[in-house]
């Protein structure tokens, strides 16, 4: 059993050992570089990269707090022969360096007529639940999913995290690797050897014939809990973990909806122009005749992430909210006590 944190660390370690062009750069990815204390003091703000500096002292680089410069630097290095893994500490900092991501990395290959490869990985933390308030809790991956040229990965467990990260590092396109900050300690069986998981292949986490629940990242676990409760009420939910939002395995969604006729998309990003709205639109467009009920989305409200614990708890999708949406869709209510 390995936590997501250790699975990511193991993936980085194995790839750095395998390929000398892989580097890790970011703010405090070693932590303490050049200080009097331990040079590898932090190993990333949550210790995800801890231990790598000692093994690869020249390839694990602390940066100044300078997102535009070091994310751009990683992209430029990728265009010049390296496979950098840059850590954008919080996805909320995207705004600081966004031009480098969406105007530069994403477009090189297309604008330059297919001659560029930009094999950069940007690891970043997303998600609410840690009382981190509005600027450190967002799930901004739809903004990145929106951009052609970028690939967006959102693992839900340690096994996937390792396989998807190794795939991301070996991939020749720019990849944004989004890690939910509330699930680093979540453990799963993770093989010691190196392996990859292909992008654009969703995983059916739980099979069911009544309702399809499509989700990603940490909410996979929320939806699984909802599905367990609903199963006790006689409603069989199929839970689909997208794993990557770009490329998106839309066929897997259609296949499941063909079976169930009902779709709920559960997502942590904002509802307007978000992932859930996009999937609903795709299904309405491409699988209209399969729908046996109006498709639903369970997302936070169109509001920033609040700080106060009770407010944040209200804000996020919960198993109860997911179950309620499913019940409404199939026309059942819960019996009173």
């Amino acid at each position: 059993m390995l936590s997501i944190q250790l699975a990511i660390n193991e993936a980085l370690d194995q790839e750095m050992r395998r390929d000398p062009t892989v580097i890790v750069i970011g703010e405090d990815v070693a932590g303490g570089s050049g200080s009097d204390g331990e040079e590898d003091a932090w190993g990333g703000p949550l210790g995800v990269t801890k231990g790598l500096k000692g093994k690869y002292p020249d390839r694990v680089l602390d940066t100044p707090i300078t997102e535009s410069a070091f994310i751009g630097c990683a992209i430029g290095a990728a265009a010049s022969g390296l496979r950098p893994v840059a850590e954008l500490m919080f996805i909320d900092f995207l705004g600081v360096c966004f031009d480098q991501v969406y105007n530069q990395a994403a477009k090189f290959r297309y604008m330059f007529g297919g001659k560029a490869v930009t094999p950069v990985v940007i690891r970043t933390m997303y998600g609410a639940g840690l009382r981190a308030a509005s600027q450190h809790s967002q799930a901004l991956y739809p903004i990145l999913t929106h951009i052609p040229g970028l690939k967006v990965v959102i693992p839900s467990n340690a096994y996937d995290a390792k396989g998807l990260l190794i795939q991301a590092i070996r991939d020749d396109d720019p990849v944004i690797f989004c890690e939910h900050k509330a699930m680093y300690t979540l453990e799963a069986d993770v093989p010691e050897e190196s392996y990859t998981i292909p992008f654009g292949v969703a995983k059916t986490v739980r099979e069911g014939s009544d309702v399809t629940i499509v989700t990603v990242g940490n909410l996979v676990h929320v939806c699984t809990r909802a599905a367990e409760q609903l199963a006790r009420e006689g409603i069989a939910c199929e839970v689909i973990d997208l794993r990557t939002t770009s490329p998106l395995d839309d066929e897997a969604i259609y296949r499941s909806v063909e079976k169930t006729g009902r779709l709920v998309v559960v997502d942590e990003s904002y509802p307007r122009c978000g992932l859930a709205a996009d999937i609903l639109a795709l299904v309405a467009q491409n699988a209209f005749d399969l729908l046996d009920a109006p498709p639903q989305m369970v997302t936070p409200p169109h509001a920033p992430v609040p700080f106060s614990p009770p407010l944040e708890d209200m804000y996020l999708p919960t198993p109860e909210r997911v179950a309620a949406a499913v019940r409404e869709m199939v026309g059942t209510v819960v019996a009173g006590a």
Partner: protein
Amino acid sequence: MGGYCVNATLDNSHPLDREALLSAYRVMTTIREFEERIHLEMALGEIPGFVHLYAGEEAVAAGVCCHLDDGDRITSTHRGHGHAIAKGCDVKAMMAELYGRKTGLCHGKGGSMHIADFDKGMLGANGIVGAGAPLACGIGLSAKIRGTKEVGVSFLGDGASNQGTFLESLNLAAVWKLPLIFVVENNGYGEATPATYHQAIDDVAKRADGFGMPGIVVDGRDFFAVREAVGHAIERARRGDGPSLVECKVDRFYGHFEGDAQAYRGSSEVENARGRDCIEQFVGRVTSAGLVELGHLAAIAQEVRTLIDDAVTEAKAAPWPDESDLLTDVYVSY
């Protein structure tokens, strides 16, 4: 390691042989003829989109790139034709690119503002002012990690020198001692706004000292001065001593973009600028010193004009990209 000097007296430690002089002349003349022709073709409505001309600033591209091999990489600006030509990009393919043709350097998908050729170490003109500086840090970092002697050059204008990306990149390059040269082409305008308005200092090179790297100001109309100053900076970078900033004072013969009426410039300003044309200065110096015969230069100029004529003729006759090109190369694999 800081420092800042204006019009440094350089020791002319980079002597030029006849071939190098002819090559420099050919580069500058090619840029000039390319840009003058684009100016005409744009006026005829033959070229789509936004175009920013480099005419007047040729000595900088030629003076910098004469030191570089294909393994040395540059990032460029929206005013990037000169850098691309000096870095060795195919002129006919560049012309076809500006015309949006399938035979263009980027198969018609980039256009003037995104001309690039990675094989030549040209990582792209750039539509975003200041965006090339962080990318150039990556060039330097890659060279350093891979243990090569390659260097990176980031071309920027005085306008970009006010962007955060530029200032952040100066810091990162200095902190990591990256083999990198920031070449600031100060043509006195950020679009239509004069540098006297958009910054409170005379010389952008002053900023280098604040980040701990040498900053040098040279006359960008003087090929020899540019070549000498950048030569020192590149040697320093290849030695592993870190980045430098070289500010070249230049003149922009045309507007910010083609179609810019330049009402903001004084009536004699462009005329005066043309009077100190970097190419004429170059020709005067090499011929008066007896290094090269005028007739030889005239022959090169004729060859260049023929090349540009052919480039335009071929570009106009070249096929457009078709529907099959629309969705290729969004990703390497998807």
